[in-house]
Structures are given as C-alpha cells and as structure tokens.
C-alpha cells in the first residue's frame, strides 16, 4: 500500500473558503478524494456534514458538490443538455438557465465538450458541481486553464457562494488563488500539513522578524554583479545576490532603508536596470516552511 497522505488533519467550515495549498504531488488531491469518498483510506477518520464519506449514500452526495481536476465530462456531451441531466438527479437543483448565464456557458451551450477550450471545460465542470446547490463544494485546482476574465468570473461566484454560507474546500498550487480566495489555508507538503492559518496569520510567520511582519517587504533589483551591500543596510535586513546581477533585499523595510540604499547607489554611480518592491507573499511563507519552491 502506497502511503501518499499521512498526517493531514484539517477542518473546513461553512461560509468559508478553505484552501489546501501545496506543490504538485503533495497529496492534496488524494486528501480531497478520500473526503469525497472516491478513494478508500487505510486509516484515519473523515467526517463530512457528520457522515463518513466512505459509506455515505445518495443523501450525503446530494449535499456535496465535486469538481474534479480532470473535469469528468463526457467528450461527446453538450453542456446544456448535460447540465439538465445532472440537475435531474437532485430534488431541488439550481435553475439551469440561471447558472449557465452566470458562468457564461450559454455562449457555448450546444458545442460538444471535446471542442471546448480548457477554460470553458473548467467553467462547465464548476457548473456541474454546483447544479445541486450543495452545502459543501470541493474544487480541485479550480483556476487551472482559466483565462483572466473567466478566472474573475469564477472567483466572484466562489466568493458569493461562500458569503451565502457554502463551505468551500479547494486545492491549489497557485499562491495567488489562495491569497485572493481563502479564508483559511492549510499548507500541505509530502502528505502532511506543515502550517495552517488565515492568510494574514501565515504572512506574519516569518523567520526574519518576530513581530511587525506586516512591514516585511522584498525588494528585487538588477544591477552590476558583485556589489558588496552587506554593510549598507542595518542588521535584520537580508541582502543576497540570488543570481549574477540580481539582488534580493528582505526584511521589515522602512522608507529610511530605501533612502539609504538609493544614497549608496548614487555614491557608487549605479542606476538599477529594474526594481520591484513586494509585500511578503504566501510564496515566501511556503519557501520558508518547506525549504523549496512551490513548483
């Protein structure tokens, strides 16, 4: 028996988006599939709306919506008839026209699934998961293949459903998704959850600073290689040359630090080719915790 997931413990609440964040292969999908009753678990316990998904019947399944990573849509089907069919499996489904309009599916409602773009398939899969007006919604990599416009459409709908009291559990390897959508994040690495919290809570976890992490910024700039910046900025601000000519300055940066740096550049007659200043992101948190990049 291959043990993919061992040591994941998580709770998702109604009216919240709970994100499982981790690199590909971390065990996110396996965790989700156990919770959906699609995979048999060899140990541990799962309670979904008070029931064990492994033994649950149609009653529980009608209250849970699932969007699989591979879609699960028959290639020869047409979106609107397919949604009408799935709607018929529920006692009180979502109005098909309304949902189809909401997700912009009406523009390709009669095109066979095999001819749809990745983003169109993704929106249809979301509609199929939502058609039964579930109380709990599972989304496996919901923004995969979405163009920016459909992404906004999907994110708006997810936020609205969350505000309406739906419990939404999604997996993603995209930090941006988690940061924009999630109320609570579990960081999954090698089949374990290694950190959890709200996005602000996670962002405050910083090895560089005990407190005031909301001030932590990362400044990246391009300049001639080999500059010795080690004594330019005070202790607590890390400076490193990540690759030849690319510098990364991380810490609780204040305007005074930027002024100091700019003065040093002026004294040495250096004008950076490019520079960007960013607040600490989940990507940095993930890097700190797991010691590796998310991808």
């Amino acid at each position, binding site marked *: 028996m291959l043990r993919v997931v061992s040591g994941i413990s998580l709770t998702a609440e109604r009216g919240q988006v709970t994100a499982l964040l981790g690199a590909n292969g971390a065990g996110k999908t396996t965790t989700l599939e156990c919770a959906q009753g699609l995979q048999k678990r060899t140990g541990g316990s799962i309670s979904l709306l008070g029931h064990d998904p492994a033994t649950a019947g*149609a009653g529980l399944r009608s209250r849970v919506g699932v969007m699989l990573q591979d879609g699960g849509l028959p290639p020869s089907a047409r979106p609107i008839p397919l949604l009408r069919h799935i709607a018929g499996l529920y006692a009180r489904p979502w109005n098909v026209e309304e949902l189809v309009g909401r997700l912009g599916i009406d523009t390709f409602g009669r095109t066979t699934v095999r001819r749809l773009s990745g983003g169109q398939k993704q929106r249809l899969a979301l509609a199929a998961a939502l058609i039964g007006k579930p109380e709990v919604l599972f989304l496996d990599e919901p923004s995969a293949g979405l163009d920016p416009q459909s992404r906004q459409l999907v994110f708006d709908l997810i936020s609205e459903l969350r505000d309406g009291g739906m419990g939404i559990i999604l997996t993603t390897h995209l930090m941006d998704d988690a940061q924009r959508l999630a109320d609570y994040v579990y960081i999954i690495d090698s089949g374990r959850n290694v950190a959890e919290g709200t996005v602000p809570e996670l962002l405050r976890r910083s090895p560089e600073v005990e407190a005031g992490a909301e001030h932590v910024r990362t400044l990246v700039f391009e300049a001639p290689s080999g500059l010795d910046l080690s004594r330019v900025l005070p202790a607590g601000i890390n400076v490193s040359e990540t690759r030849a000519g690319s510098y990364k300055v991380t810490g609780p940066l204040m305007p005074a630090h930027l002024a100091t740096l700019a003065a040093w550049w002026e004294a040495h007659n250096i004008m950076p080719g490019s520079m960007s200043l960013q607040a600490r992101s989940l990507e940095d948190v993930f890097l700190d915790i797991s010691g590796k990049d998310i991808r």
Partner: protein
Amino acid sequence: MTRTPAGAAAAAASGHSGSAGQQPAALPKRVLLQGRYEALAMLRNGEQLILAVVLPLLALVGLTVTPLLDGMGASRINVAVPGILALCAMSTAFTGQGIATGFDRRYGVLRFLSTTPLGRGGLIAGKVISVLAVLCIQVAVVSAVALALGWQPTAAGWLPGLALLALGAAAFTALGLLVAGTVRPEATLAITNLLWILLGALGGIVIPADKLPAAAQPAVGFLPSGALGESLREAFLNGAVDVGAALILLLWALVAGAAAIRWFKWN
C-alpha cells in the same frame, strides 16, 4: 481562531432549517434518467448505430441469400433471425456498452457521476437500462425487417425468446463492464470489437454449432454467444426452452458480474 467541523455546524443548522438541505431525486427517477441519457448517447453515436443496427441487418440479408443455413429449418430466415437477435444483444451490451464505459472511465466521467446522487450503483443500473432500451429498438427494427422478408416465428417462442435475450444481455453487459473496468479504453475497443467478430462468426451465435468444424462444436455451447444463439433458435424455431443453455447464460452473468465487482477500477 477556533475551527469547528462542518458536520457540527450542519447538525446545528438542521435544527431550524431542516428542509433547506438538498435531497436526491427519487432512486427510480435517477436511474431512469441515467438510462435514458446513456441510451440517447448510444443512439446518437454513428459508429455504435452501425454496430447495433446496420451490421446485424446486413448479416440477416447475407444469411438469407446464401445457402449457409440450408437444411436446418423450414426457411433460411427462420433459422437466421434468432441468431441476429442474439448478435444485437452482443453488439449493444458487450461491444457498444464496453467501449462507452471504457472511455467514460478514461475521462473521469464515472468518477464524477459517482460523486453525484446517482452513485456507482445507480450508474450501473442506468447502463443496464440503456442497454435494454437500445436492445428493444434493435429487436423492433430487426423483427420488422425480418417479418417483411417472410420470417415466421413460433408464437410460443416470443416469451422465452425475449427472456433469454434479456439474460444474454445481462451476461454480455457484465462481460463488457469487466473488460472496460480492467484495461485501457483502447484495449477495450480492440478486445470487444475482435470478440464481436470472432464470436459472431465462430461463436455459435448466428451460425449454429452444427455448421461449425466438429472440433469446435462442444466448446461453442459453453460460450455465452453459443448458449444465447442456440437457445434463441430453440425458442423461435420450436417454441421450446433450452434449460441447459439458459443455465450457462446465467452462470456467465453471475461469474462475470462478480468478477466485474471485484476487479472494476473506477479510475
């Protein structure tokens, strides 16, 4: 931040809004809907339609214009039609349904539908209904053409004949699911098409065992194709029930069904 399980929240919520939660449609409705959906998908598929209706009709005409079946009954067509009906059951239940299921498995359709109120049991029941629905259409079309060509079935043969056809469809559905659930869809496509040709030509389904090489004759009766073909001819030619063949079909249905339940992989 305190986090309480969704289940606890659900229990609390159900106290004052118990009727608000979603419920599944009634089980018969779910299964019938799935059956209708799959039957329509099968009928809309051109290749499946050729396999289900066109090829059996071509075989029927072929058997009535050639002397292959001479000497076995009052007319060629009387001997030919029961075998063609058996061929229809094999086309739809085994080859057509097996290929469709194999590709549905590849595309995650089975996994997705098993998370809906339909569930795995409802999915299988829907497939059985779709096979029976398509088989009804095939029987109607083949019978109408055959009657127009002069087929004279024994009236007493219809009841056992149709019952045996349903039993044969069950055995072939189980075999189709067994193949579709254990190998890749491309392999399912190859295996079910190849077996359709082999069993159709040499499996005792349209050409009676007596007309096959002597060495093959004893084995043919134990094949689902041979058992179904022989028992349908017995029913429609003589109005009699071949109990032995019926038991063999039942055994195939049970063994293949159990094997499919044991080894079917949903993903």
